[in-house]
């Protein structure tokens, strides 16, 4: 942890121990889950494209800590973390990545199609930008039912290139729809750096002309993510309209697979010094350091949590590898309800 130094947590706030524990646990679960896929990807036991969330855990954990099961969430291609943070079952996720019948989508979706309806995780799909409009619809459903719930769309800086985002902000702004747009700006749209695909490298300001409240915050700082989202959720529940949240972050892995190497070659073209710099801002290592320094938890307690999570993940892999693939005769099943 000697190279961990970048993140300053809000000092004035005093959260209960359980709250910190729960945030840390969510982030560690996501990280351990993500990193557990690397070996099976490299030796081809997992073949479906896997987009790892390592490095961005604070956003999923901080945002979802503000939500209730009635609040609805849509994800994208890189949504293992969103699914887990919203309460999705670990084994259902891992089995789905192996494309097994036990998976949350019964092996019909794979890593990029995750759902946990009972937890309000209404779906993650890989057409980037598309789920922004779906979240608008879920938020509209909340508004029509007047049930005080909010809808959240997680999307990246790349998806902000799709015109639908601006249509959604305009409509949500006109009608004060309880929608929270969570833009995870990890500076890359697949291989393209943000400076090559946008005139500006910030996203929060795109919401201003649509009368959408907007907040920009450090996405690797879980407490700041939580606080920004808490403000956004309150704004929506008070029927004051949509909120755009931009969280700056960085993915520690390539766009797909461990290092953009799903077809065997390593194609991550980001500068190594940039990657190294961002590793010092690791959201988990920094938070752990903060919790230990502030004497909220002891190192041993955290290590014990970590070991238990590693074991849970390992057991889930073991079971998923043994589970059945969908039966060939079930090919036509599920086209229509």
């Amino acid at each position, binding site marked *: 942890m000697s190279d961990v130094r970048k993140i300053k947590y809000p000092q004035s706030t005093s959260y209960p121990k359980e709250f910190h524990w729960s945030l840390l646990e969510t982030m560690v679960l996501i990280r351990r889950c993500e990193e557990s896929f690397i070996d099976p990807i490299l030796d081809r036991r997992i073949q479906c494209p896997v987009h790892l969330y390592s490095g961005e855990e604070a956003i999923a954990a901080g945002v979802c800590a503000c939500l209730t099961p009635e609040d*609805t969430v*849509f994800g994208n291609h890189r949504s293992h973390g969103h699914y887990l943070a919203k309460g999705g079952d670990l084994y259902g996720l891992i089995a789905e990545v192996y494309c097994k019948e036990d*998976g*949350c*989508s*019964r*092996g*019909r*979706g794979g890593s990029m*199609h995750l*759902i946990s*309806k009972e937890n309000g995780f*209404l*779906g993650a*799909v890989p*057409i980037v930008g*598309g789920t*922004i*409009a*779906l*979240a*608008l*619809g*879920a938020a*509209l*459903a*909340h*508004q*029509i039912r007047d049930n005080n719930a909010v*809808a959240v769309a997680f999307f990246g800086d790349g998806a902000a290139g799709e*015109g*639908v985002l601006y*249509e*959604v902000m*305009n*409509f949500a702004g*006109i009608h004060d729809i309880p929608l929270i747009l969570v833009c995870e700006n990890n500076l890359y749209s697949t291989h393209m750096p943000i400076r090559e695909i946008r005139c500006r490298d910030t996203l929060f300001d795109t919401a201003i002309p649509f009368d959408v409240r907007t907040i920009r915050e450090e996405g690797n700082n879980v407490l700041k993510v939580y606080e920004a989202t808490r403000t956004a959720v309150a704004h929506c529940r008070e029927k004051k309209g949509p909120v755009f949240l931009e969280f700056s972050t960085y993915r520690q892995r390539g766009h797909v697979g461990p290092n953009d190497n799903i077809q065997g070659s390593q194609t991550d073209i980001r500068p190594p010094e940039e990657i190294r710099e961002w590793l010092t801002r690791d959201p988990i290592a920094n938070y752990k350091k903060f919790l230990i320094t502030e004497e909220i938890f002891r190192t041993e307690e955290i290590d014990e949590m970590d070991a238990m999570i590693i074991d849970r993940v390992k057991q889930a892999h073991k079971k998923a590898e043994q589970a059945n693939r969908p039966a060939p005769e079930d090919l036509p*099943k*599920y*086209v*229509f*309800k």
Partner: protein
Amino acid sequence: MSSNSRSLKYSRAINEAFVQLMTADPSVFIIGQGVKSPWYVGQTCAGLIDQFGETRVIDTPVSENAMTGAAVGAAIAGMKAVSVHPRMDFALYGLDPVINEAANWHYMFGGAASVPVVVWGIINRKGEQGAQHSQALHAMFAQIPGLKVVAPATPYDAKGLMVAAINDPNPVIFVDDRWLYDFEDDVPEELYESEIGKAQVLKQGTDLTIVTSSYLTQESLKAAAILADSGVDVEVLDLRTIKPLDVPAILASVRSTGRLLAIDGGWRSFGVAAEIVAVVSEEAFEVLKSPVRRLTLPDLPAPASRSLEDPYYITSESIVEVVKSMLNVN
């Protein structure tokens, strides 16, 4: 037919479907451009805002991608959403939520969720409106797994299929035609459904089967009446649903007449008529007394000038001509 039916225009039959369903089910809502304006949607949405408010009858900016996506998203969240496109051409901006999301949703999540959305596209053509205000795109939607496509020809089905489409747990494309809006016929007063996937013989005949849908069902019935004067007795099978296609009904009719003319208001190549012909060739080739024929729009965009529109569109006269040539009747 119910004893409580009365004569109603096609557009008013759709309106009645909305009024009755929205009264019965608070999860039904309508979103799309022009719901406030009869210029856009005829009488189909008359009085809805007064009765149900702007929260459930939502007129929108021209943002079809987001508005169609919102309907799909609301349906995923458990609402019964109707997304209206008063000119079907503009629905092309909203294809991503329909094809990538709604059509695939139930399958790609292994049945964990479904999308009870109706995407309602109104074909509004002729009148020298030209290529971008005229397109009939039902065949394109019918190609997509996971979508149902209905195209009512009568006021009875306009109401019955709209109700069935809204109540269906799957995404349904409801295609109608402004040329049908003033057709008047018996419509039951109560709430009912026309079953999706069931065709109906609207005129029985012995010499030849016309399989058709939507506005061209009405033109085919006119043609059948004209042909009857020449002693030609055609059967008219109204598909009502484009997908799933009622194959048994098509085969039964062709087996009884031995001749098939497939008529469709879309383009010729890779279209609905081509699909009907393929099904008959595969399943009932042995009963055919003469080659099958298709009558469709030619493979070219809709023109503006009247002098070009007239030969472009199918009429009862052009149907009569094709039937006579198939039967070698003068």
